[in-house]
């Protein structure tokens, strides 16, 4: 059956593990950009909702990145290039 960890938490933490090496604010920025670029709005909503509920399992970097996300809006400035994958 599906595992205990909700998909957005698992995916968010995957992003953290692969991008946390970036210096300064860059890690949170890259994670936020990735989520804007590739996550469907309801997944972003779910992540933001978890943060609002005070989900303590979330990595601080993911929480910081989510600060950059606004429900239902894409930052078009970030997504100039062809996108791949």
């Amino acid at each position, binding site marked *: *059956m*599906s*595992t205990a960890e909700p*998909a957005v938490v*698992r*995916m968010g933490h*995957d*992003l953290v*593990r*692969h991008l946390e*090496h970036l210096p300064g604010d860059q890690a949170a920025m890259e994670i936020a950009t*990735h989520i804007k*670029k*590739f*996550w*469907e*709005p*309801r*997944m972003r909503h779910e992540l933001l909702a978890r943060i609002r509920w005070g989900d303590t399992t979330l990595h601080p970097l993911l929480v910081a990145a989510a600060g950059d996300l606004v429900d*239902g809006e*894409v930052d*078009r400035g970030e*997504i*100039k*290039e*062809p*996108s*791949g*994958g």
Partner: protein
Amino acid sequence: MTLIHEPDLGTPAVANDHDVTLTIDGRAVTVPEGTSVLRAARGAGIDIPKLCASDNLAAYGSCRLCLVEVEGAKGTPASCTTPCADGMVVRTDTDTVHALRHGVMELYLSDHPQDCAGCARGNCEIQALAVQTGAAEVRYGRGGASHLDDTADTSNPYFTYDPKACIVCNRCVRACGEVQGTFALTVQGRGFDSRITAGGTDFLSSECVSCGACVQACPTDALTEKSVIQLGMPSRTVVTTCAYCGVGCSFKAEVQGSGDDTRVVRMVPWKDGGANEGHSCVKGRFAYGYASHRDRQLSPMARDSIDDEWQVVTWEEAITRVAEGFLALREKHGVGSIGGISSSRCTNEEVYVVQKMVRAAFGNNNIDTCARVCHSPTGYGLNHAFGTSAGTQDFASVEQADVMLVIGANPTDAHPVFASRMKKRLRAGAKAIVADPRRIDLVRSPHVEAALHLPVRPGTNVAFVNAMCHVIVTEGLWDEPFVRERCEDADAYLAFIAGPEHSPEATQDVTGIPASDLRAAARLFAAGPNSAIYYGLGVTEHSQGSTMVMGMANLAMLTGNLGREGVGVNPLRGQNNVQGSCDMGSFPHELPGYRHVSRPEVREIYESLWGVTLQAEPGLRIPNMFDSAIGGSFRGLYVQGEDIAQSDPNTSHVEAALRAMDLVVVHDLFLNETARFAHVFLPGASFLEKDGTFTNAERRINRVRPVMPSRVGKDEWQVVCEIATAMGYPMSYAEASHIMDEIAATTPTFAGVSFARLDAEGSMQWPVTQAAPHGTPTMHVGSFVRGLGQLTETVYVPTTERANRRFPLVLTTGRILSQYNVGAQTRRTPNSTWHPEDVLEIHPSDAELRGVTSGDVVELSSRVGTTRLTALVSDRMPAGVVYTTFHHPVTGANVVTTENSDWATNCPEYKVTAVQVEVVTQAARANAGAGADVPADAVAGRP
């Protein structure tokens, strides 16, 4: 169209800038220096007879039929082995050569059956040659020694070898070696006693991989397709493209009859095929019978609940049910509650139309494709590094490669025709570095031996590629001018990769690759001078798949191996149209041509053409669809030609998602595993019935031409258009070519593509633009598509899926030559002769520890599920790693694979699952000791 006989010029073309001019039968002929007289003459329309020569084989000079006279030269040389020279005067039509040829032909005929079935069928060159040489009446009589009592070898399911008709011209032996690279055939005996043999055994038990090259090479009826024996000779040809793997071989479908009575007699590889140049593998050549298999569903069906029986319905009713069902779900649960999955098995035109239906009629971006589960990290990583989501070279580029680094790919099984090209180059002296946990065939096979086999542990590719780059940078082997001129963020990257944590000594315990071997591999790759990377799903299907793709891009950039022939980063794509389905906007975040949905100027192109407003937000990926289905917000799914219940990881999770949906529509050839959860089944068309294009791994757009009309009465794109129309968004095209016209008009990289252009050019590699009207074989010449190449700090982040006390082994998966993916097609052909079931390969020491011997039924369990398989003890795997394929549904290999996925693209981590293996039933061990292991070669499960 009638039957196409492709001209055979007798010897291979010679690449030489220097031309020579000679006179043949009084005509001046100019050819590249080194060309044989036979080829020069035949090219000029002078038909010198030949038997042992063929233009895909090196000249052999044994039959003596091609004799000519050369002024000033002694005797009558064989024209196939005589190179042209400036000023040479050749005569092909003298009494002397006629008499000699006549005599030679008589000798052949004296040992050739008078009632040869091949003559009757017209499947033999001998008859025509006898007439051409005037030897139709034989002087020697037929009373002497002959081979007319020899018996035929019918063991191969697809072709027979009848020694009676064999003239021992050696073409088959040479084709097996030179073209296929298997060397299964030899000539046994001498002189009159000489016979062709498959290693002293029958074809089926031999090393033969059933590629068909020998059958094609045979000038007589000795090697003949069983289908020809059964059905007789074909009467017309349709040139089309194989629908199996990403090599994209071109074939002549040779058929009898017309319209609904069309019958395929055989598929013969097309010499002008850009990808295969006349070669084939057992799948494309022979395994097409599934298209007429009795399991094929030819009528639409529907049912209210998945527990009900299927009811056959009319097309009209099926389409109404689908459209009304999706509309009702959208009404009740919102616009994002429905979506579609398109297939990398379908044509570009079909895939384009599916994403258009989802975007324009469903009104969302919930479109994804099965490329999600195979090469999505390729798209992500190569786009990030170079600015385009595709491989950098054409296949022919391998002929210029000096060093090939093969990572996580098993080309001899999964991309066999390209593997033959690789092996040819390796036999000519190029060196191979194979990085793979398994000792795949490329490590050692006849006349090919890899310079190094690096048995990289599953899940540690990034550590491996970083170590390669570390050695190249710290030993000063990198191409500084290239990096400085063409790449960005070089200093940061160089500092990162020089860190001691990346050294081979520091990483050898992680990767399992001895530091000295890794250093040797890095030095070899850097020395090149042309070094090329070829990779497959052993790279992408990891939690760091995208990072690894960027890591390989780093390696190619560091060593300056981009932007010319012989080099590059080359994904070997799994399915026939993975490249195309990605190109066609099948991902939920991008429109055709890899342009993000958030870009207003791109949406505007489609909004004005389609007359709708498009969503600017990305849609759901396949795994997100499953999660949302279980969560209740995703309720309806259209699935085209993909068996997600069998091919996607963590089967029980997928099944729970499918069960949770209110409407599942399956559009397929067969009632597959996914159809168990479907409410409407729409019958699909096989590749033999399609009109469209496939794009292969080298970006080559090939035509798929209808060999017969659709057996279900409709084209797939037409069905999709009808669903959209019934949903209130009118969509229609008069013919498939109009869909390509729309693609070309809206996608810059396809600007110059049309069916007419493809028909005229044969095939084209995108980008096809005004600047590159014939396409682009090699990309990134002079500069990258994104400008500067992006060097990326590829930090190695181990997977969370690790062996532990409960699950101490690592399972990795792959495929074998005769079967294809979930086996829906190949299992329905005689290919199952070679692979009746999936087996679990396990290392002798792991087997011994668990009391497992070959043939035992074992239970394979992971943290998500359990399945049963037959064990095969094999030392092709390193200790600690077990391996299986997923071609048979009963195996349920994906019952055990987990939800882990690539961090960037959610491509599942099929290649790493922590598992345990336990014996369930022991095989009979009557006279076998406990170590009754199967020798490694048997594991190959040929073909």
